[in-house]
């Protein structure tokens, strides 16, 4: 092994080291479900409902502004419209059947936080945080996928900038306004989410 090779190797090592430190915060750890896009029992399209037909998120996810969970609409909610619209489509028939057999639809959970995280939808919704901030451009998704890593880093990215956060054209969160008054800050106390 010559001096040359030794130099090359040591150079590589250094580069890798730098890369690790630089990119470390983007590594994908266990439980990172980003891009998770499971098949659902009913082929429901958010694009059609939230996108094309402009139905408000809260119409179906009605507890998002009251509870820690956003809530999945009851089958009855679907039938509010679908008794008239597309009542014959096979997908709708599934819901009809579910109601008939008194057997609720078992949706597959897409955005699933670890059990040691207590996330409260209502606080974020009432604080004016857009759903898309975490869930991404759902109104463009035919089948919903997990838009962001939803890692702790993702959460504190907003919480640590005590400012209002909005989305840029790519639907990426961006810090816009100046710092809001101190007492309205998003807290970074561990116990806000971990208890």
């Amino acid at each position, binding site marked *: 092994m010559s001096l040359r090779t030794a130099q090359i190797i040591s150079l590589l090592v250094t580069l890798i080291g730098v890369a690790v430190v630089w990119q470390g915060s983007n590594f994908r750890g266990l*439980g990172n479900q980003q891009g998770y896009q499971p098949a659902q029992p009913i082929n429901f399209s958010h694009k059609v409902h939230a996108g094309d037909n402009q139905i408000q998120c809260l119409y179906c996810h009605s507890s998002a502004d009251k509870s820690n969970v956003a809530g999945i609409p009851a089958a009855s909610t679907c039938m509010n419209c679908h008794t008239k619209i597309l009542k014959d489509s096979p997908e709708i028939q599934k819901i009809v059947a579910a109601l008939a057999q008194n057997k*609720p639809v078992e949706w597959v959970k897409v955005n699933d936080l670890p059990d040691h995280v207590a996330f409260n939808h209502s606080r974020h919704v009432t604080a004016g945080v857009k759903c898309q901030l975490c869930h991404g451009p759902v109104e463009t998704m035919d089948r919903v996928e997990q838009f962001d890593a939803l890692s702790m880093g993702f959460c504190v990215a907003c919480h640590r900038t005590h400012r209002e956060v909005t989305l840029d054209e790519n639907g990426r969160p961006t810090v816009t306004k100046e710092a809001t008054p101190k007492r309205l800050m998003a807290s970074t106390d561990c116990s806000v989410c971990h208890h």
Partner: protein
Amino acid sequence: MSNGQKLWQIFREQDGKPVDLSAKSPVAGVSRRTFLEVLGYSTAALTLSGCRAPQQKIIPYLKQPVEFTPGVSSWFASVCGGCSASCGVLVKVRDGRPIKLEGNPDHPLSSGGLCALAHGMVFGLYDPERLRQPLIGSRPATWEQIDQEITQKLAAIKQSGGKVRLLTGPTTGPTSLETIQKFLSQFSDAKHITYQPVSTDAIRQAHLRSHGTNAIPSYRFDKARLVISFSADFLGTWISPVQFTRGYAKARSLQNGEREMLRHVQFESRMSLTGSNADTRVKVSPAEETQALIYLAKLVATSNEANGAGGTSALPVAEQLATFEPARLNQKTRTAVERIAKDLMKPQGDGLIVSGSADADVQYLVNFINSAAGNYGNTVDLAASSASNHSSDQDIVELVRQMNAGEIAALIVSGVNPAYDYFDSQSFIHGTQKVPLKVSLNSTLDETSSLADYVCPQSHFLEAWDDVEPARGTFSVNQPTIAPLFQTRAFQESLLRWGGDGRTFYEVLRQSWREKLFPRQKQYTNFDEFWDQTLQKGVFTPESSAIDTPAFKSDGLEQTIARLISISGDTPDGLGLVLYQKVSLRDGQYANNPWLQELPDPITKITWDNYASVSPRYAATTGLEEGRVVRISKGPAWIEVPVHIQPGQHDDVVAIALGYGRTKAGKAGNNVGANAYAFVAFTEGTFRYQTAGIKLEKTSNRIEFAQSQTKDSMEDRPLVRELALADYTKGKGETEEEYGSLWSPHDYPEHKWGMAVDLSACVGCAACVVSCQAENNVPVVGKDEVRRRREMHWIRIDRYFEGDREDPKVFYQPVMCQQCDNASCESVCPVLATVHSSEGLNMQVYNRCVGTRYCENNCPYKVRRFNWFEYPHSDPIANLALNPDVTVRSRGVMEKCTFCVQRIEEVKIRARNEGRAINDNEIQPACQQSCPANAIIFGDLTDVKSRVAQLKKSGRNYTLLDELNERPPTSYLAKVRNSEEV
């Protein structure tokens, strides 16, 4: 009912209640614990990359109920079914699961307090060992079968006119009683027998004699200024402990600048929770106790006030008493009695004498003194007499006789377990064999149920409708907060079925309320409105037509006194046995509840066991050591229990707790301790819990107690600080020394949570411990682990004995995490798993903790608890009791009190969503909420007007271990004893 899933099905069908698995319900997919596990093994898992968390399902409603939001807790006012005291409770229901009981502040009796037992009830609901369907013999059966067979057999009895007996515990609900009567009325010879293993029947009988009313008065400790208790454990287990503790604490409170307080004198032979709180505790043997009482009666009867006061019929017995000489009493006791006799008579009516004695004669004498002192109508209230704890010892004895004589055709048992706790259980068991039809309505296959032909498990009180009238004129409805988990039904339902009544008990209940109670109020014209209001308020008190107290009847008093004098004189000294109940297990009905089993006894700090308490001197003279197993016997009755050396106990007395030694309680309760009921005697129409002349022999075995505290003394350290009322009123008090700091403290812009613990109020009842356990998913570790000093309770109550071990002063000190500003635990954690919040909380992040236990070592208060093992959370039913707002901790992480941060966050979020500030007292940690004595006050220190901030200004305020300069926002208010000096 095999798995959790089915259970939810039932749920859905019956109630249309939610099945929201997205909430952190342990039955859904990955529980918190499993997740932490996964997280834990992440290093391993990372290598097999791309592995995902298991797929989780969300199951929404079919039809959205309007009043209900998933993930938001709703509260229902109801009644605690733990004992017949029937305290008012609020049931916290989350996603269809009742997960917590809390005191109902609007309830006139318990007024927001709750006892340890009540907090354990939630666990009872999800006890996996409850019967899940009716049984015929031991075979599972359907209700149809059961109803059919039983109705047939009852019909036959109706023809033959055989005796039918319904044996229940004390029942206060008007509708329930009505149902029972209606059911029994169909038989020619039927009787409802109420039975209590530990009864207060003597009081009832005494009042029958003294006032001609068949009642147990309600004692108004809140009105009393002087309480004289003859071994009545009214703070622990006697009649209605929560109500009494509330009143007692109220009358002793110094939190609002009061300058005087109730004075409490206790005469007792063993060290009871109540006695340990007394201002003056006089240690007497049972025989001396009786003499002391007679002596008091003498002084009262012969005092001028009594005669001057007229009204009382003191005079007839005055002469008889005048001749009495309390030969047994030592000087100390005499002076104590003389002193209280003086105070008792002036001013009239604010004294209160209570006695725990099961001797009707003694109680009669007590009534005499109370009436002579003019306490009736003031501190002793017959008008609102207590309906709870009504039972007749005579009746069950008679029943057992008849059973053995083969006279009973049908025996229906509901909610009682005589096969275990009847003093002569053998003859009861033997008797049952002669009863053709034995039906048990108990909810578990306990000692009695296993003897029955038919077991028709009744629902848990959280699953059923009921009504109660614990005190005359105080009505509550007990509403179900969850559909029955199993195929069970309320015992009233069963009786209705068998009585051929087609209605549901709910209908019966509404109807009887419409007919009986609705008319007794004017506020509402519409019954439904009245009904809803009552349900929401949790209590209904009609305008009572005032009943004036009947006059004291002294006929027979002389014989009584004569007898008492003779027995108290004759009974030989020598070893006597005193049987008592523990605050945790009471009569043993809930022995299968591990929360209660693991609750350290307030006095001995021993868990998972009962034992024979003896005095230090007795132990020394007979060479007994702690834990030495002894055989105690009297006649045929014998028991083998370990010895516990109890400071402050009388030398001639051995005390053993009842309620242990269950054989068919369940996994947790079986064979814990030994059954002492065999020592109960039935004399003069009442069960007696004291016997003289027992034999005590050492055995060769010795055991180690599972004890949460082994050191009794404070080692002369100023841990619990004490003031005499005299000094306190003179303004003497603590002056907190301010220690300097090397650096400027951090600022707490928004809130600064703080707590004050009033040691003067705290009676050490340990309700907070179980409340905390229920709220924070604190695991149960079992006897061996407690033995290894690894119990997990987040709040503990330190108990210290000071002074002469034969007659010590007792101190209680609840210790939870003090949330120190300069927390020594935080700076040593290498991974920042415990840091300080911007609101002054000492946060503990379970998922960050790697378990070095350095914080535990460095915590001077030793309040941190480590998960030594993976504590079991495998049972899907038991897991339903878990609080979804609190992470279930995995093996290897540290945990501790967080001031119930989940509650703080909940209220903060609510307030912010509503855009308002948080009100003082809006946030209550579990310990504060349930404290019957209001000893714990929590609040925001940045708000100078908050109650806690005010209390910290008090002269009694001090910081535990302040010399360490940990600067905790938690502080203590010094204990004040109502005496001249400490």
